[in-house]
């Protein structure tokens, strides 16, 4: 990883507002206070990605002060998970960031597996990668549709959601639900891959790049789109790192950092893909990163499919009777299997004492799970490191010299999912 030399200067030094990093305060020397109009954007507003509330001080059309207020979707996931067994907890992380469900589940399952020290069959690893990338594309499509909608390009929403539906079809076929699948289990996958998946996924892989071309035809060269996104919401590489940004926001600021590349998990070191990096640090760069990442993800999915097709008939979950539910057909023949089944379902499997931090590259950046186990069947503490939570911290820094319309564009480009922010 390295910070790529910028060809154009974004801005000098750091712009993190002081003393409070995450709120922009009205500069009384610049703005006459009686001209300031304070407005609540949200929690109910067409373009706040759910329930984000921005308290904005406006000087005419310009944003003079801003602070983000969050917590409207706080549902206490972390507390709830302390009351459930590890097995049941797997259904929770995906509901936190409901757009990148599968990746969140992966992070949590990886954390459990790290504590357990369990070996995962390679088929499960590759399928996990495949589904993670599908999730990434799904999330980026939702992002693209809604962000374009917020800038007024209404049609994009329907085009992206068409392809998103095709993506979700794959999830429905494999996992049984279109979102929130609980398909990844500690030790591997919940079920084998259905035979029809390969063909449909391949057809999807063929279709997707064309669809991305179409999106770019609408937006990429559109004069208004360029005007609205270029040079807006600037964030320098230093500021992005200092503010803990990750994922597309960080890569749009010129930092070549991708957990899949730099700290590979699963089998990301065995597939070839590029990490798109743009150095402008503005909304347009973030848009470009999202578009390129979708292309790269399609590449990864194709490679995963190639490998998965070779692995037909291989086991998809570890044969560890203390953790994994015994095979279905054994329940009627083997007493021991039935006992294990009952023990795992009622008590849950126990996870050795320890604390781990496991992180994956979610569509929004570094999604981390910090898990403490006391050796019992329930987690002692679960904490999610939510990339959107961090991304929203950067709103004030990005929002220098911005108009209301820019604010919408910037908040959209930071790609916050409120379920994840508030947890």
């Amino acid at each position, binding site marked *: 990883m390295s910070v790529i030399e910028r060809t154009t200067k974004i801005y000098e030094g750091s712009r993190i507002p002081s003393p409070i990093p995450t709120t922009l305060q009205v500069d009384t020397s610049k703005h006459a206070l009686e001209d300031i*109009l304070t*407005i609540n954007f949200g929690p109910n*507003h*067409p*373009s706040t990605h759910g329930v984000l509330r921005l308290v904005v001080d*406006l000087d005419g*059309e310009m944003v003079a002060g801003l602070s983000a207020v969050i917590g409207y979707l706080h549902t206490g996931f972390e507390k709830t998970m302390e009351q459930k067994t590890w097995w049941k907890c797997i259904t929770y992380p995906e509901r936190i960031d409901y757009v990148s469900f599968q990746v969140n589940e992966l992070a949590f399952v990886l954390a459990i597996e790290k504590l357990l020290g369990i070996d995962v069959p390679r088929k499960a690893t590759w399928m996990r990668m495949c589904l993670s990338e599908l999730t990434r594309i799904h999330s980026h499509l939702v992002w693209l549709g809604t962000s*374009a*909608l*917020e*800038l*007024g*390009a*209404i*049609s994009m*929403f*329907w*085009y992206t959601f*068409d392809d998103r539906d095709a993506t979700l079809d794959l999830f429905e076929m494999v996992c049984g639900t279109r979102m929130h699948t609980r398909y990844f289990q500690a030790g591997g996958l919940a079920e084998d891959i259905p035979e029809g998946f390969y063909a449909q996924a391949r057809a999807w892989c063929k279709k997707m790049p064309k669809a991305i071309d179409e999106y770019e035809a*609408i*937006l990429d060269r*559109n004069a*208004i*789109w360029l*005007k*609205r996104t270029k040079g807006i919401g600037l964030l320098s590489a230093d500021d992005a790192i200092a503010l803990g940004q990750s994922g597309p926001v960080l890569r749009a600021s010129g930092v070549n950092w991708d957990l899949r590349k730099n700290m590979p998990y699963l089998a990301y070191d065995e597939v070839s893909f590029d990490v798109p990096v743009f150095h402008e640090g503005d909304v347009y760069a973030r848009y470009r990163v999202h578009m390129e990442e979708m292309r790269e993800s399609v590449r990864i999915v194709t490679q995963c499919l190639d490998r998965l097709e070779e692995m037909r008939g291989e086991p998809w979950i570890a044969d560890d009777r203390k953790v994994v539910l015994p095979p279905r057909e054994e329940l009627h023949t083997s007493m021991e299997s039935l006992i294990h089944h009952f023990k795992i379902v009622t008590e849950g499997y126990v996870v050795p004492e320890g604390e781990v931090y496991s992180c994956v590259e979610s569509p929004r950046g570094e999604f981390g799970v910090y898990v403490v186990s006391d050796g019992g069947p329930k987690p002692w503490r679960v904490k999610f490191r939510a990339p959107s939570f961090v991304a929203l911290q950067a709103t004030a820094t990005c929002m220098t010299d911005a*108009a*209301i*319309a*820019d604010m*919408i564009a910037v908040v959209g480009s930071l790609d916050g999912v409120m379920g994840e922010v508030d947890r």
Partner: protein
Amino acid sequence: MSLVPHVLLSSGVNGEPWWIAIVKAFIVINLVLVTFAYLTLAERKIMGRMQLRYGPNRAGPFGLLQPIADLVKLIRKESFFPAAAIDVLYIFSPFLAAFTALCTFSVIPWGPGWEIGGYQINGYVADLPIALLLIFAIGSIGIYGFILGGWSSDSKYALLGSMRTCAQLVSYEVALALSVLGVVLMSRSLSLVDIVAAQANETWYVLPQFVGFVVFLMAGTAETARAPFDLPEAEQELVAGYHTEYGGMRFGLFSMSEYINLITLSALCVTLFLGGWHGPLFPGPIWFLLKLFFLLFLFIWVRTTVPRLRYDQLMRFGWKVLLPVATLNAVVTAILVVAL
């Protein structure tokens, strides 16, 4: 007789009786209202097809009863108003907007005129020597409806919306007026009937006045607050702009006046640049409608495709691009008209 304005008495250059004008005005208003109703349906249908969906198709065959269903819904809604609103202005503004919008159509010519039962019936409601000015004048009054509505409803979003409306409409009015100057110079008249007649003799003004035509369309888009210049009601920024606090039929009136302004503007564009009702084969009104629908389709198409401009970009575009271009166009036309 003395109660009837002088305008109507002298309306017909061909001596049309005044009561025919009133009947015609009634018919035209209703036709415009029907066009408005089905324009909303057409917009939703066309946008739907462009967005891979059907658009409304449940109310009646092909959703043809949808406008009526919408009307019934709007009328049946509670007509509340915010406690802090200035109620007189709050209630008055939608009516002002709707009234002025309906008024302006009166001077648009849509046919050659016919003689039925010995009576001369002209293809317009009124032919004024200053028809073009009248449209702009009444249109400017209509802006008050939007501004007052947003201001009096005592909501910050509505206030921002009316601020934007105010600035945008005033700015683009200038470019709009300048863009038609070339046409006026070429036809040497402010009367729309004369302008149409002049185009029938020479050529459609869209060819010699192409720059004026483009500027007119752009400024007109801004004037009617359509995408990409729909900042006064930018949903993603200002929730609904100046009519955030309006509901029921009052909102319906605002919405109606916007659409009727769009229809009027397209009709004006047809009259000024596309040869009015003239065309081969079909009778005049058909040609008029065809050209009108083409322009309306264009507006809908634009709305489906492009993102919205930012406020300062909008202002810069209006003052720094459209206005100089329109001025230059007018000056060049003036020189050419005088020289030739």
